[in-house]
């Protein structure tokens, strides 16, 4: 077993790279993770995002060693650890429900991994103190776990997971049980811990906003496989499927059709030359815009228009919500497609039933394949 170094002088050397190679896992007849490949670079902060039951926790458990893959292998820095038991992987794990030991006080909880590693008493106490200070719980050693608030318990759990300076930190919805305000504060704190420790982090969440704000890279799960992965900006602005587009946030999309000769046809309008190479076969596609990429103006009363690389389409407002600097509108096209746009809160009638004009630039559109 590789013993973690004692000090944090050279943090990056401690971080480990993780790779999952063709990993599958089934429970009985149900395939829960399917032929999954994933590379996590040393020191990277990767979020696994996806709907409930998409296999995020199962994947995390295989990295931690709690579950054995049915097929495939798990590697740390290129070394096969598939058969290594969890206690020998040097991985810190933080659970949604904190999982603190109820029979131990805060100090003893944090000292637990050091005791398992036979770190002598004096050094142990110092490291416990330092870890607790890192999560702003200095002086809480003698507190009983049950006397702490949820946020405090989760910070004890984090201190316990980092005190032995693991090379990899796994977190399974660590903030899921906390209220919104506390969650946002803890997001910042976890981010800053990641930067200070330089440790590799794999973070599970089903909150897309959390994944986008915290991560170097977002891995989107769907039915036990990776739908898409990339930087937050990539996956948000350039989703590769309608599922990814929907899961990562609000959007507006219309069905269209690619015709031979680089032409694009939008319902009810004459086909136009499409300005971008698409790499997509001729046939139905969806055009998607994020809310901020759509311009909204008061209704002109004119019919829809498709010229050069711009579309102007009148739509009906289904619902409007004032949200400070922007107003979000849910709108419906004449042919039935619905979507969400955002517009500065000025001069737009956002009451239900009113109508507005949308200005859509093809340059900022994302072309999504239509699922068969």
């Amino acid at each position, binding site marked *: 077993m590789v013993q973690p170094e004692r000090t944090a002088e050279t943090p990056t050397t401690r971080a480990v790279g993780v790779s999952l190679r063709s990993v599958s896992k089934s429970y009985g007849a149900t395939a829960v993770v399917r032929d999954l490949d994933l590379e996590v670079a040393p020191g990277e902060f990767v979020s696994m995002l996806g709907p409930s039951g998409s296999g995020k926790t199962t994947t995390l458990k295989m990295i931690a060693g*709690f579950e054995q893959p049915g097929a495939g292998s798990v590697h740390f820095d290129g070394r096969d650890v598939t058969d290594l038991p969890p206690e020998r992987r040097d991985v*810190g794990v933080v659970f949604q*429900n904190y*999982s603190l030991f109820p029979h131990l006080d805060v100090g003893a909880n944090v000292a*637990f991994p050091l005791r398992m590693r036979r770190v002598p008493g004096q050094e142990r106490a110092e490291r416990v103190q330092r870890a607790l200070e890192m999560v702003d719980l200095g002086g809480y050693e003698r507190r009983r776990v049950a006397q702490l608030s949820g946020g405090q318990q989760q910070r004890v759990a984090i201190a316990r997971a980092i005190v032995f300076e693991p090379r990899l930190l796994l977190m399974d919805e660590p903030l899921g049980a906390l209220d919104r305000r506390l969650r946002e504060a803890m997001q910042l704190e976890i981010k800053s811990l990641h930067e200070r420790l330089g440790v590799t982090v794999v973070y599970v969440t089903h909150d897309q906003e959390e994944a986008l704000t915290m991560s170097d890279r977002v891995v989107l799960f769907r039915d036990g496989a990776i739908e898409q992965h990339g930087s937050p900006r990539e996956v948000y602005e350039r989703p590769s499927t309608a599922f990814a587009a929907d899961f990562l946030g609000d959007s507006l999309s219309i069905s269209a059709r690619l015709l031979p000769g680089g032409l694009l046809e939008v319902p009810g309008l004459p086909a136009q030359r499409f300005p971008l190479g698409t790499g997509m076969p001729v046939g139905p596609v969806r055009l998607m815009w994020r809310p901020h990429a759509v311009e909204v103006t008061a209704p002109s009363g004119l019919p829809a228009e498709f010229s050069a690389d711009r579309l102007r389409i009148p739509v009906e407002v289904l619902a409007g919500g004032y949200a400070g600097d922007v107003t979000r509108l849910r709108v419906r096209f004449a042919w039935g497609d619905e979507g969400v746009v955002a517009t500065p809160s000025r001069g737009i009638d956002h009451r239900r039933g009113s109508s507005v004009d949308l200005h859509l630039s093809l340059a900022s559109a994302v072309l999504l394949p239509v699922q068969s």
Partner: protein
Amino acid sequence: MAGVLTTLDPTVPGAAVRRPGHRRGLGGALPAVPLLVVLGLLFVVPVAVVVGRSFTYPDGATLANYRTALTDPVARQFAWNTVRTALVVSVASCLLGYTYAYAMYRAGRTVRVLLLFCALLPFWTSLLVRSYAWTVLLRDRGVLNELLLQLGVIDAPLPLLRTSLAVTLGMTQILLPFVILPVYAAMTRFPPDLALAARSLGASRRRVFWEVFLPATMPGLVAGAVLAFILAVGYYITPVLLGGPGDQPIAVLIENAVQQRGDWGTAGALSTLVVVLVLALLALGWRFLAKGLLGARR
């Protein structure tokens, strides 16, 4: 490093945050009132009569009965028999009960139900019958001795009946469910993630058991131990039927005082002392009993 968190976390207090318990009004206990009245009549009244007699028998207010009860060497001997037996039986019940409950916890569904059924079997036969059944098994020409003789393991019957061993066996079998149930309940409340957390922190399976699982389920075991001890202190039939002269419990002495000598005073004093002992134990073990039997209320 005083940081972001202290300023942003609304829950960081100067003092510990106490979770407000689930306080329910006394009104919630209303449906229990009729039962409490019946229990009161059947239990409190007779106890009050016995306690009363211990201070007044045979003629007016007196502490003489307690002097006798506390100084009489015979009473001391019987008291020691009782406590010793109860201790041995509690320890045996805890060891066996924890192991049994752990087997239930680890077993598959079918085996678990079967084990639970077997654990509860003793509740469905009378105490007297079960104690006699042990005499059939353990006496000189009993099932066990015959078997050993047949097998040639022994030449002469082992003296098994009328020994402490027989008492321990008989009482442990009867008290086992009282340990198994709270221990098993505590085990089912053990969050499996706790074991995973411990593994990831560097504990082997063995250390997870000794350092996390056992301590976390300890309230259940303590509850079972307290129950078993309290019940064992009051046992009468089993030690009388299975035990030797050195195993006779205080209950025998009490019965003797009343039946043979009509000495309600000494009997009352002895009984009161036993009740006080039991109540003291209950007070000491209350926290664990509440936690072990009802589960931790947050």
